[in-house]
Structures are given as C-alpha cells and as structure tokens.
C-alpha cells in the first residue's frame, strides 16, 4: 500500500491557509453556485406545477388542439433531421 512514490503524492498540495483570502473567495464561489442550483431547482418545480395547473384548467378541445400542435412540431423536426442526413 505504500509502494507509491511519496514524491508523487506531493504533486497536489493540500496545505491549508497558504492564501486564506483566495481560498475563502473560491469557497464563496462554490457556495454561491450551490445556492443558485437550489433556487433553480425550486423554480423548475414551480414552473412545472404552474404548467400542470394551466393544463387542468383548459377544456378538452383546447387540450387536444395543443397536443396536436405539439405533435406536428415534433413531426416537422423529425422530417428536418431526415433531410439533413
């Protein structure tokens, strides 16, 4: 288990507090990213709920029309891809 070069281990330096300012700034950035990720997750869930609510409030015809539109759009996209090939 200790056949590895001890020199090799030192390639990555894990000494703390060499430059506390920078280290804290880097941590702050990571923390902000986490906060952002959490907020975005909440936002996405919220949007999904809204969309669900909206769909439920539509009448049957409206829903079907929307589905049809979506399916046609999908179909167009697929045809477009075929041509590219």
């Amino acid at each position, binding site marked *: *288990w200790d056949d590895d070069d001890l020199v*090799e*281990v030192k*390639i*990555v*330096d*894990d*000494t*703390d507090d060499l430059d506390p300012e920078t*280290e*804290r700034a*880097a*941590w*702050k950035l*990571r*923390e*902000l990213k*986490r*906060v952002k990720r*959490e907020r975005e*997750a*909440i936002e996405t*869930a919220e949007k999904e709920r809204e969309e669900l609510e909206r769909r439920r409030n539509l009448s049957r015809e409206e829903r079907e029309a929307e589905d049809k539109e979506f399916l046609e759009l999908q179909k167009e996209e697929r045809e477009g891809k075929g041509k590219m090939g």
Partner: protein
Amino acid sequence: MTTHAADARRFFDSRGYTGLQIHNQNPVHLLEKPTRDRIITSYYWQEQCFAINEATLCDRAAALTFIGGTYGQQKPSPFLCLTMKLLQLMPGRDIVLEYLNQTEFKYLSALAAFYVRLTFDSKDVFQTLEPLLADYRKLRRRTRDGGYSLTYMDQFVDDLLTKDRVCGTSLWKLPQRTILEDLGQLETRESPLGEELDDIDNDDDDVVETRRRGSSTPNAHGNGVDCSESEG
C-alpha cells in the same frame, strides 16, 4: 465488541449474519461486493487494519494523504479500507461526531463524513453534514486512473449529499432535501454566507435594473428586438 479474525471472510458472508444491522442489512454490505473483495485481499487492510479499534483507527486516519475509491488496477484506497473498518466496528454516534468535528485531522473528518452518509438516517445526514459545507479545507483526491486532484471539504460533502456515486461506492438513495422540508422534518437551509448573500442579491437586482434601463435605449432605435432574435 467486534471480534477480529485474521481472515475476515466470515464477517463478510451474508449467510446467517446475526450481528447489528444498519439500514436493515449487514453494514459492510453498504460497500459493493467487488470492492469488499478487493479490500479484504489488499495489503493495507491485512496489515494496517488488523485488530484496530475506534482509538487506534484515528492514527491510521490521521496518516491518510488522500481520499478516493479504487485506483490503478482497481486497488482500493486506504480511505475505503478504513471506511469498511468503521462499518465493522460500528462506533457509537458520539464517537463518530467527535471524529467529524475535531479540527486537527481533515482526512479523519472526511472519513467520518463518508461514514455518516452511509449509515445515518436521511434527516440526520443533512443535519450532520450541512455545517461542513462551510468548511473549505483542501483535500487530495485520488482519481480512478491513479492521478491526484484537488477537492475541498465542502465540495466533498456536497457530492455526498447530491451524488449517487462517491469514492467508487453506490450510496443509498437519499431523499431530496425539498421533500424532507415539505414533510416538516427539516428547516430550509440557511447558507453560511448569510448577510453577504442578501447583499449580493440586492446587487443582482441593481444589475438587472440597469440592464433593463440599458436595453430600453437600443429598443427605441429598433435594434434591441433584432438582437434578441438573432441570439435565439
């Protein structure tokens, strides 16, 4: 107390296991079978993990120089070997928390964090590990190809809380934080940035406002709309 046999195979045999359980199974089974097999045949396990207890394990953990799963030809890292030792010893909660919260040996804290993620209940995992998101000590991590990379305690803990696989181990499925919040088991997480974050939020609002003000001018010239369309 756990008895130590030179050959640990009996303990790792799932048939007829009668000891204490964690998550309704033999605790060592929280690691994967191939990993377990590699660990018990590794020199580190046989030589350094034989007949150690909760106290002497600290010496081994303090001597760790990196975290990681398996590397090279799927050689298990000492970090994983010690994790398995912990699963075998099953130290009491107060001991684990002491491992976690001492500040002198960061690799011991990392080891305890990994153990907490594997063995504690979902609510306790969040409550115990989240304070460490404010801990930005550096950790050396061994990658699968045998190289080294730099990570941080908060990064490692964040991985433990959000990822399915960490250090070559499939972690049991942790429910999302939002679900536990909805169940009323957890409070909303307060970022350790605290007031700083509010300041930044306010700054952001300012930026957005100035942008809006800025973009209204080109709109008046009829350029703004064209720009946004070409971007899309």
